[in-house]
Structures are given as C-alpha cells and as structure tokens.
C-alpha cells in the first residue's frame, strides 16, 4: 500500500432479511447512520461518498444524501457485481490515497428478497422465423441449452472442476461445508437464517443444481452495510476512544481474471482470487497462517471449498483435507465464515463486500459477543463478482 495507512473508523450492517416496507434508501440510511454513530462522526465529516447497488437503480448515492445529509461532496455510484460493496470501499480508499479526501463513506444496499433464481441475460423469446442475434449469432435462447447461466449451476461446476484437477469431491463434503455455515449462523443475530441444519437435512433438501441443494445456496435477502474510512493522519486528530476502536486496513486488493482457455465457458474465480491473495499477503506483510479468521465468498457451498485453496489456506489441491481437518469450523484452527456465510447470513449483493468487513472488524475489536473468536488480531475478507472480479481486504488490530 502507499505511504499512509487507512483505517475503518465506523462500520455497521443492518440485519439481513426481508424488508417489504423499507426501500433501498431506508436500508442504506440505517447502515450509514449506524456507521457514523459507530465512528463518532457525522455526514459533515465526509469528503466523499461511494454508494453501491446492483439490481435496483444502481444510483442510490444522491437519493441517500437527501436522507442523511446533502453536503455537496462528490458521490460515486458503483456497481461491480457481487464485489460492488468492496469496490465502493476501494473508491473511498483511492480518493483518500490520492489526497482528495481524508474521510469518506462507503455504502452498499440491495433489495433481493424473493427475486428467485439469478440467471444470465441470455433469455430471449423466439421470433416468427429464426433470426441470428448477438455475438454467437444465436437463433434462440442458449441458457439451459448450451450449459447454464444460472448461478447455482455455474458455481456447482466450479466446485466439480476442482474435483477434476485434484480428485473428485463428494456431494457430502460440499454439504458438510453448508452444515458448518448454518451452525455458525446460530450465533449471529444479524443473519437472515439462524437455523442449525443437520447434514441429512441439507442433503435431502430441494436440489437446485447438483451438488448444491437449497441450503447450500446463498440466501437472497435485503440488507445494507456501510463503513467510514479515514486516513491515519486524520485519525490521529480524533479522540482516543475513536483511535482505540479503529481497525487498520492492512491490505486492499482488487483483481480481475486474466485470460486462460476455458474462462469463456466457465467463470474462473480461481485465478483472480489467488492473485488477489498473493498481493494482499504481500501488502500486509503477513502469510496465510497469520490470519485468525476469514469471511470468504460462499455464494454456494461448492465455492467455499475452492477458495480454501485459492486463498492459500491449505496446500495446493488439499482443500478437502483442509476442510476435513476441522480447521474452518469456529472451534478450529482458522475459522471460515463464522457469520454464517452467505448461505445463512444472506447475500444482499451490494452490501456483502462491506458486511464481511463488519464481521471481521467486530471480532478484531473484541465486540462479537457469544460468537467472538478469541485472539483475533488479523482477519481477511474475500468477495467474488462474477464476470470476474475478486476483492480482498486484510484487517489488523
């Protein structure tokens, strides 16, 4: 990272769930005002606002200002698939590093409850005669005829592809990952679902895209998260109480996937994650073993497994062995997704990349209550935006 360190000064997430009577801005405002309160600051202290939303208007920054403070500061509306929230954070960080701001707010808000299956855009009605359209000259819809663009099916194949490289991974192994995350969720009051599920219940639930059953898929929920980021120089002018709770952003990295054969037919979330992890460890001056806990992008149980390897939490090819060792359970050596992960906490897309930072920051501050991971001094967050983007943050206290 550049010369000056950056810190999380305040951070907040709404409970994830269903909010039929609250709109994107209500949720974003709750998150923003919560982050201000947490950091002991006001909208008047912000020099920049980056606002993320993917599936609503995508332009929530200015409407949000009307509700939390219209101060004339620059607003950047951000979309970057499931990495939208993390990207909003990076916009604020880049502005601070560029010297254009010393404190800013990043927010992500999404309304996703009840939207159903997320799929690709390639669904078109047939015309009266076959007419080639688009970059493939397709005469009819290809999603479902030439593979799948549905997210559960795409990420199922990502998990299976890992098996092709390193030895077949059983349905049961993937389901056990989901069992872990649902178990973790029971201690997180902000999770949309807090129900412990047995392995048998998970495996016998509705099959969405083998080997992902319904509880192995991220939950479509509403929610928002926001954080106030501050420069070290500015932080040193604030109160001792504020300084004591600030969490250092030891690394912040965003990558995309470099070309390789196959990336055009199956999203490659491996290359971008591995590269982002390498850069993040170098920036923070730490190694994988120094990380006490990780919130990674378990949009599906099949995805969590491959990221053990991509984040270098285990030896190459040893993700199954790593999981079977128990390391990633909250009682294990290096817990993963103690929040319950996206499978039970929920995945309001634009909020996700800030909510996982909230989870880690809360543990590093020692404020996680019954689900506190003891001795947490360094933690990591990871999100994937399909298309593909990877964002990683390493936080340190």
């Amino acid at each position, binding site marked *: 990272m550049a010369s000056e360190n950056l810190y999380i000064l305040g951070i907040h997430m709404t409970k994830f769930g269903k909010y039929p009577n609250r709109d994107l801005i209500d949720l974003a405002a709750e998150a923003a005002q919560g982050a201000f309160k947490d950091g002991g600051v006001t909208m008047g202290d912000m020099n920049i606002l980056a606002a993320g939303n993917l599936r609503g208007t995508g332009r929530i920054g200015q409407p949000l200002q009307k509700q939390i403070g219209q101060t004339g500061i620059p607003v950047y509306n951000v979309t970057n698939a499931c990495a939208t929230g993390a990207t909003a954070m990076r916009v604020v960080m880049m502005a601070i590093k560029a010297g254009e701001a010393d404190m800013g707010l990043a927010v992500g808000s999404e309304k996703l409850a009840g939207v159903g299956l997320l799929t690709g855009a390639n669904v078109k009605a047939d015309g009266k*005669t076959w007419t080639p359209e688009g970059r493939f000259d397709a005469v009819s*819809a290809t999603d479902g005829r*030439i*593979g799948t663009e549905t997210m559960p099916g795409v990420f*199922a194949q990502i998990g299976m592809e890992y098996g*092709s490289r390193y030895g*077949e991974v059983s349905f049961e192994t993937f389901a056990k990952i989901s069992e872990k995350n649902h178990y973790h969720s029971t201690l997180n009051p902000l999770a949309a679902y807090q129900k412990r599920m047995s392995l048998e219940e998970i495996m016998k639930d509705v099959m969405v895209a*083998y080997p992902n059953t319904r509880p192995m898929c991220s939950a479509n929920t509403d929610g928002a998260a926001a954080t106030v980021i501050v420069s070290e120089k500015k932080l040193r002018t604030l109160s001792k109480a504020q300084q004591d709770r600030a969490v250092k952003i030891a690394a912040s990295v965003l990558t995309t996937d470099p070309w390789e*054969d196959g990336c*055009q037919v199956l999203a490659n979330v491996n290359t971008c994650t591995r590269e982002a992890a390498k850069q993040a460890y170098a920036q923070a001056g730490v190694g994988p073993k120094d990380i006490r806990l990780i919130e990674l992008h378990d949009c599906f149980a099949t995805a969590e497994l491959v990221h053990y390897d991509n984040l270098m939490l285990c030896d190459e090819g040893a993700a199954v062995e790593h999981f079977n060792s128990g390391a990633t359970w909250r009682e294990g050596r290096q817990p993963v997704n103690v929040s319950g992960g996206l499978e039970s906490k929920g995945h309001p897309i634009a909020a996700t990349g800030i909510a996982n930072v909230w989870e880690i920051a809360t543990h590093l501050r020692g404020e996680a209550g019954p689900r506190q991971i003891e001795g947490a001094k360094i933690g990591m967050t990871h999100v994937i935006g399909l298309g593909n983007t990877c964002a990683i943050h390493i936080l340190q206290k």
Partner: protein
Amino acid sequence: MPNQVPLVSYLVLGDDPHLIAHECTNCKARFFDRRNGCAKCFGTEFKDVSLPKEGKVRAFSIVHSAAPGIKVPFVASVIECGTTRVSANIINVDPKPENLKLGMKVKLATYVLGKDEVGTEAIGFGFEPA
C-alpha cells in the same frame, strides 16, 4: 429435408456437424463468439478452426431450476475437446449423479430444437456418452 439453421454460428451443420472456434492467428487463443480483439494477446486477426468431436467431461452440474421453457433436470457441463473447453449440455443420458463421471468420454450430437413459422428447423447440440 427441411431447411436447417444452427442454434449458434459456431455449430457447423451438413454431413459432418462439428464445432468451430475463432483462433487468434498470433497466439492461437480460441473463442466461440465474435471478438473485436484477442483477450490474450490483443491481436485482431482470427481464423476458423474445427474442434474434435470427442471430448471428456471436466465439470458438470445437474440443473433442476432453470429459465422458463427449459426442461429440467438437465446436465450442464464443461467438455474438454482437445485443448479447448466447450460449454454444452450432456444429452441422451438419464440426468442422475450415478450416470455421470468427471473424465467420462463424450461425443458431439445434434438434435432438432424446434421449427419456425416457415418450417425451418433450428439445430442444437450437446455431448452424449461415447
């Protein structure tokens, strides 16, 4: 025989239906869709090359929930055809886990996807157990 059109232009019909790719003349990276430039080396010249009709399964998912109009369950997969990976459904197989295996050998197969108002058939493709 009715007129036929392929579902996508990288499926070549005729006596010997097969898939083609647009290969970068500089670095040999292969693409199925129309490209403005090569994603690997930024070259802008491509030539069409034929792909082998046989391959092996690198990844699959049995998809039970899909866009309207798509019969479920079906098997989505990534097939390795020589050095090129192809997206396709595995067809002519009972879509159950016990019938599918990573690494299994498959071969290209075509089928009639439907007819339009003037009777032209659209031809789709998949891979079936070899």
